[in-house]
């Protein structure tokens, strides 16, 4: 089985990597990564705004942000994909490509989750940080921008990266609306070969695993590196004699 899986991978590596590109739309791992990067990349600034609205003292900001977060968290991703898929063309009056539909869905979905991560990061900071910022005369937006958010986002970087990893896994659902990403490519191969589903989906599973595992490793490495920089040499002393 392993040998035939390797043979399938060797014959189809280009399809798995970039899909039909350049003769068709970009697909495969390239599309999966692009969906994830665009999804998280656009969701992140939005999630900061949603988080700020969630902790705002104005109800007019707090209520809709809270509603959005609860709604999105309480509905399966697949449901949101269908909603966006059928609703967007109606609202816009034009056809919306699958890729765009998927990016919009991911931005909506991930920004709700990320905003909770950012909010937790803000609320975990000691109240003294905001006190100090205000005592020095900083306005609330300034305090957020220069003092609170840099710390909150730094502290939450590992969670944000792990959210990125789950976004990569979430892109598989693009399959149901024919977005030519990695799962779609594997399914194409499977349909062509007909008799090798285990081998094909073994390749698929391994590919996702390699991508996601290396990203979590990267996150861990990054976390240690930045923590070391912040803690500084004074704290690298391994064990003080007692």
């Amino acid at each position: 089985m392993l040998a035939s899986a390797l043979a399938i991978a060797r014959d189809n590596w280009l399809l798995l990597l970039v899909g039909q590109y350049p003769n068709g739309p970009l697909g495969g791992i390239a599309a999966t990564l692009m969906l994830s990067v665009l999804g998280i990349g656009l969701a992140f600034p939005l999630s900061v705004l949603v988080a700020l609205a969630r902790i705002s003292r104005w109800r007019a900001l707090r209520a809709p942000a809270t509603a959005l977060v609860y709604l999105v968290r309480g509905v399966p991703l697949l449901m949101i994909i269908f909603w966006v898929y059928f609703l967007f063309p109606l609202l816009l009056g034009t056809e919306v490509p699958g890729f765009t539909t998927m990016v919009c869905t991911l931005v909506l979905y991930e920004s709700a989750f990320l905003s909770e991560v950012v909010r937790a990061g803000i609320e975990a900071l000691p109240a003294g940080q905001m006190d100090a910022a205000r005592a020095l005369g900083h306005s609330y937006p300034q305090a957020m921008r220069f003092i609170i958010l840099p710390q909150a986002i730094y502290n939450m970087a590992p969670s944000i990266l792990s959210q990125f990893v789950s976004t990569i896994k979430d892109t598989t659902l693009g399959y149901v609306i024919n977005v030519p990403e990695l799962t779609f490519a594997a399914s194409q191969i499977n349909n062509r070969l007909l008799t090798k589903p285990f081998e094909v989906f073994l390749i698929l599973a391994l590919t996702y695993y390699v991508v996601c595992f290396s990203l979590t490793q990267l996150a861990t490495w990054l976390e240690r590196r930045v923590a070391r920089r912040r803690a500084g040499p004074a704290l690298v002393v391994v064990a003080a004699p007692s």
Partner: protein
Amino acid sequence: MIEFRAVNKMYGDYQVLADINESVGRGEVVVVCGPSGSGKSTLIRTVNRLEEIHSGDILFDGQNVHARMRGTQLNHLRSRIGFVFQSFNLFPHLSALDNVILSPHRVNRVGRAEARDRAMSLLERVGLAARAHAYPTQLSGGQQQRVAIARALAMEPPAMLFDEPTSALDPEMVGEVLAVIRGLANDGMTMMCVTHEMSFARDVADRVWFMDAGRILETGTPAAFFGAPQHPRAQRFLSDLRSR
């Protein structure tokens, strides 16, 4: 410089501040002491409106701190009141130098180069020029508190408030922080300082306010207060301190 007029503050039914009528003159150093829970920290935090009050007025340099005002006015007012916290509250993501540069640069719009020069000379003044590029976690408590004092001074405030500046410090670091505060007092800075360091109060204060249960029970020169306290609660407080 700082004037309390009939200030009251409640937490539910509990009166944290009761009928405070006192003032701190320009260049005066006032030490606020009293048992814990007496309202000292709350009192000092009302001066820059980190705490709200329920009635009365607090004037800072002639300006009513608790009047209705726009956010920008309050920010400007706060930028003119130096505040030093018990727990330092340095910004851990910035180096000591950047902690001191940030607010003059962003709040007072001082150019970066100028803010940096001034920050360096302030760090020098508190004896930490060599540690300018260290992050707060790399500094001892005493060093962190000295950076926090430099950070407050960078706004060139006409008055400084200290909220138990040495209570979170190991005993051997108290002296270095008090020395910096003493230096400020000698330079004529108007100061209000909540502290349990009675020998410091005796040396530096022009007047001592004694608080208990939200009231200022006694005020006087350090010599009078420590030599012959009038109020029985103050007598008991001082004898408790001495027997410790």
